[in-house]
């Protein structure tokens, strides 16, 4: 195969650019909740995001990446002309990246996930043939885009109702907060580690059995709960502030919990969204390094995930922190007791999707979770028109990504052929 080095360099650059964009823009939604609720300072949020986006992407990003890489397109059809897959994936990356830039500039509600999936489906259906698309899988992905916000909303509703029942609506919310918040921390820690381990950490040389995974997750959950309980005890309470708002101190207890859910959120986001950048790169790399042979079996090289993880963190540190600050100031409505419900519900849903290899939109999931809290009468005003905008984003993003990808596909084909 010709031009292999050029393909690899291009793939690396485009992938890095996409990952940078995700870090610069997308991470904000995942982290702003914690900043807006004042559970985290901006600096801490950025540090947490950097660490957990990286670990999420690196440890748990493989499954979704492999879906993007080989789940959407039926690669068998391409065995005769592997270069088409390379052009297509490069085109998809370019299309999604550029579309995101344009859409961000004009404030359109777009989703990275939707653009990359739209782009891949677009080039495959038009550039190769409608039968090249694995429509069953695409259908499942599209369905998950509807289901994931609903699931997150349901979990958030249940969580917030439980918080009301166990803590806020009781005679001594403070005492109950101190008692139950560590339990929620335990849940957060256990859930994230369980899903991560079940998906397998083979690619970093950790092969755990079922029992080992369970016990290790429970242990991690317990450790988190103890750390949380320690910090809750260290909070100094302020009687004066408590008079104007009875929940001022209770919220500070939830603030500790929110540090953990923020980690979970960043981890979940990294695990699902890194694939949007590196999935196509992985596909290109596997074609190029196998001398043009399209193989479904080859392991994904670890450096691809690493590239995505580094790209996300770079985008976050260079630009994302500004976006977090801006978004954070606009969502102060989500105090820790409500914000954590949203974050925990969304991160659970996203991590589960990552585990099953389904690319979903983290932001949409978070929106669903926030609505769930709203339905428990927990938020004083939600703008229902935004739900319409989210549907709009599906209608705009998919064809836009697809059309751009088709254009780039033909350009690349002409240039290299």
């Amino acid at each position: 195969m010709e031009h292999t080095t050029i393909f690899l360099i291009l793939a690396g650059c485009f992938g890095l650019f996409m990952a940078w964009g995700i870090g610069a823009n997308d991470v904000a939604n995942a982290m702003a909740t914690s900043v807006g609720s004042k559970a985290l300072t901006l600096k801490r949020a950025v540090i947490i995001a950097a660490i957990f986006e990286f670990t999420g992407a690196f440890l748990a990003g493989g499954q979704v990446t492999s879906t993007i890489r080989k789940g959407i397109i039926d690669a068998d059809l391409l065995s005769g002309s592997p270069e088409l897959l390379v052009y297509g994936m490069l085109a998809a990356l370019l299309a999604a990246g550029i579309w995101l830039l344009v859409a961000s500039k004009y404030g359109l509600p777009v989703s990275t996930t939707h653009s990359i999936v739209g782009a891949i489906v677009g080039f495959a259906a038009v550039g190769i043939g409608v039968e090249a698309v694995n429509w069953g899988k695409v259908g499942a992905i599209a369905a998950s885009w509807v289901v994931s916000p609903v699931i997150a909303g349901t979990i958030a509703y249940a969580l917030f109702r439980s918080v009301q029942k166990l803590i806020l609506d009781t005679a001594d919310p403070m005492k109950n907060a101190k008692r139950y918040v560590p339990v929620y921390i335990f849940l957060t820690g256990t859930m994230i580690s369980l899903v991560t381990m079940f998906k397998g950490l083979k690619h970093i040389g950790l092969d755990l059995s079922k029992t080992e995974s369970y016990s290790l997750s429970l242990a991690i959950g317990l450790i988190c709960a103890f750390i949380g309980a320690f910090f809750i005890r260290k909070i100094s309470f302020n009687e004066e502030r408590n008079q104007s708002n009875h929940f001022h101190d209770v919220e500070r207890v939830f603030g500790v919990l929110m540090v953990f859910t923020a980690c979970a959120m960043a981890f979940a986001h990294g695990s699902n969204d890194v694939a949007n950048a590196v999935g196509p790169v992985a596909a290109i790399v596997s074609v190029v390094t196998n001398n043009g042979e399209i193989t479904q079996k080859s392991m994904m090289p670890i450096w691809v995930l690493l590239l995505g993880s580094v790209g996300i963190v770079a985008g976050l540190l260079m630009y994302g922190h500004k976006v977090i600050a801006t978004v954070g100031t606009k969502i102060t409505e989500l105090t820790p007791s409500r914000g954590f419900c949203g974050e925990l519900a969304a991160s659970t849903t996203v991590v589960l999707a990552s585990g099953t290899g389904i690319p979903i939109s983290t932001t949409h999931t978070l929106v669903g979770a926030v609505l769930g809290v709203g339905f428990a009468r927990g938020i004083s005003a939600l703008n229902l028109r935004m739900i319409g905008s989210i549907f709009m984003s599906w209608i705009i993003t998919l064809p836009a990504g697809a059309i751009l990808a088709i254009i780039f596909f033909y350009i690349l084909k002409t240039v290299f052929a």
Partner: protein
Amino acid sequence: MTQSNYFSRIFGSSPVTPLQKHIDKVVLCVEELIPYFEAVISNDWELAATTQTKLVDLENEADEIKNDLRMNIPSSLFMPIDRRDVLEVLDLQDHIANKAKDISGLTLGRKMSLPESISSAYMEFLKRCIDATRQAQVAINELDELVVTGFRGDEAIRVKKMIEELHIIEGETDEIQVTLRAEFYKVEKELSPIDVVFLYKIIEWTGDLADTAQSTGNRLQLMLAK
């Protein structure tokens, strides 16, 4: 690139904070009636006039908050409280400030002095009516906590107690009003009939302060019951 953020846009502007700011202004406005009537009783019309200006300014500020809130409460907002209840409470609160303005306006315009024999009874009545509006303020100030607790549990019980307290205060103002009217009846024949008619009007309007405060509390109770 920051405009891209549609996540933050799902949060509408909360009606709770403006509602609380509004009642704060309304109470400040009503409280001006005390220095105002003190000036009236001591026949210092100059001081009364400046106090009344202050009162009217506060009423205008409250009106601004009211108009802002009314403009920013589109029907596409999804809220834990009924949009109609919010507007209703706002109207009632507005009504309290308007009454305070009417009371001061009428007495100042007609330079109505209170007969000495009822002035202290009237001041007692006025202060208790203002207490009722303050109690309504206390209850409205719990709205944000109510939103956190989903209008249930201990917080809801606490607010119910506040509203009960408001009912008790309002009941007291009714009793005071009865004695005040009896006192006034004794001396009314010595005064000009027109003054008497208007003084009864002032007493009635002052009582309205407490009545409206109570209605505000009732509306709040409806929100709890939803």
